C-alpha cells in the first residue's frame, strides 16, 4: 500500500475536523437546547427550563453559556419588569441542522443493524486478536 505522508496528514486533518464538529454537539444537554431552538427559533430561559426534563438551573445556564460562546445561539435581554431573557438560534447554529439531520437519518435507517451487530458480537465466544 502506498499512502504518502501528505495523504496521511490529510486524513488526520479530516478526522480532526469531524471530531471538532462532534465535540460541539455530542453533549446531551447542548444537543437538547440546540434541537429545541432549531425547532422553535426563539425561547425564553424559563421556557427552556420548563421544557427540558431533568435539567438543573446550573446545568442549563452553563449549557446556554457554552452554546453562546460557540456562536450557536444568541442571548437577548429585554429590560422590562420582570426582566425577559430570550435565546435565539444563530445562522451558525442553524447551519448545524444539516449534519445533525444526516446523523439522525443514518440512525433511523441503520440503528437496528448496529444493535444486531452488537448482540451478535457479544454472543460470540471471545477470541484473541
Amino acid at each position: 500500500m502506498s499512502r504518502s505522508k501528505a495523504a496521511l496528514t490529510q486524513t488526520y486533518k479530516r478526522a480532526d475536523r469531524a471530531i471538532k464538529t462532534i465535540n460541539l454537539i455530542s453533549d446531551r444537554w447542548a444537543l437538547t437546547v440546540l434541537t429545541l431552538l432549531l425547532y422553535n427559533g426563539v425561547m425564553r430561559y424559563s421556557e427552556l427550563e420548563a421544557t427540558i426534563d431533568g435539567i438543573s438551573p446550573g446545568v442549563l445556564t452553563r449549557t446556554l453559556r457554552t452554546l453562546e460562546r460557540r456562536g450557536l445561539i444568541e442571548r437577548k435581554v429585554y429590560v422590562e419588569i420582570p426582566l425577559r431573557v430570550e435565546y435565539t438560534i444563530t445562522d451558525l447554529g442553524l447551519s448545524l441542522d444539516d449534519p445533525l439531520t444526516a446523523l439522525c437519518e443514518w440512525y433511523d435507517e441503520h440503528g437496528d443493524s448496529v444493535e444486531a451487530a452488537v448482540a451478535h458480537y457479544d454472543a460470540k465466544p471471545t477470541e484473541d486478536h
Partner: protein
Amino acid sequence: MSRTTPEPNTNHRIDRAIESLALIGDRWTIIVMHYLRHETVLRYGELEAAITGISRGVLTRTLRSMERDGLVERKVYPVLPPRVEYTLTELGLSLIEPIIALCEWSEANYDLVKAARNAYDDANGAKT
C-alpha cells in the same frame, strides 16, 4: 411566544443523534474508517504501519469496537503466520456520508466558532 410546543420527536431525535455520535466520536475510529474506505482491505500490520502515532493496544481496541458495532469485518486466514484482514461493512460504508457532512460543516464554519469564542471571551473578561 406562548407556551412552548416541543416538537414531539425532539427526544427521539436527540437520542438518535447521540447514538450515531457515540459510534464515530473517537478520532481513531474515523481515521481507520477513512483508510479502509480508500484501501478496501487492509491487514492489521498495514493499518498499524499506516497510522502513525497509534499504539498496538489502541488500534486493537478501536478495531474490536468497530467490529462489535458492525462497522468493520475481520477475516482471519488460517495460514502461517496467520493473516488478519479488515474491510468496511456496508454499514460502515454508509456512515461515511454523515462523517463527511461533519467534516464539511467544520471546514465551512469552524473559523466562525473560533471567532465567536474570542468575541465572547473579550466581552466577558476572558473567563472560560
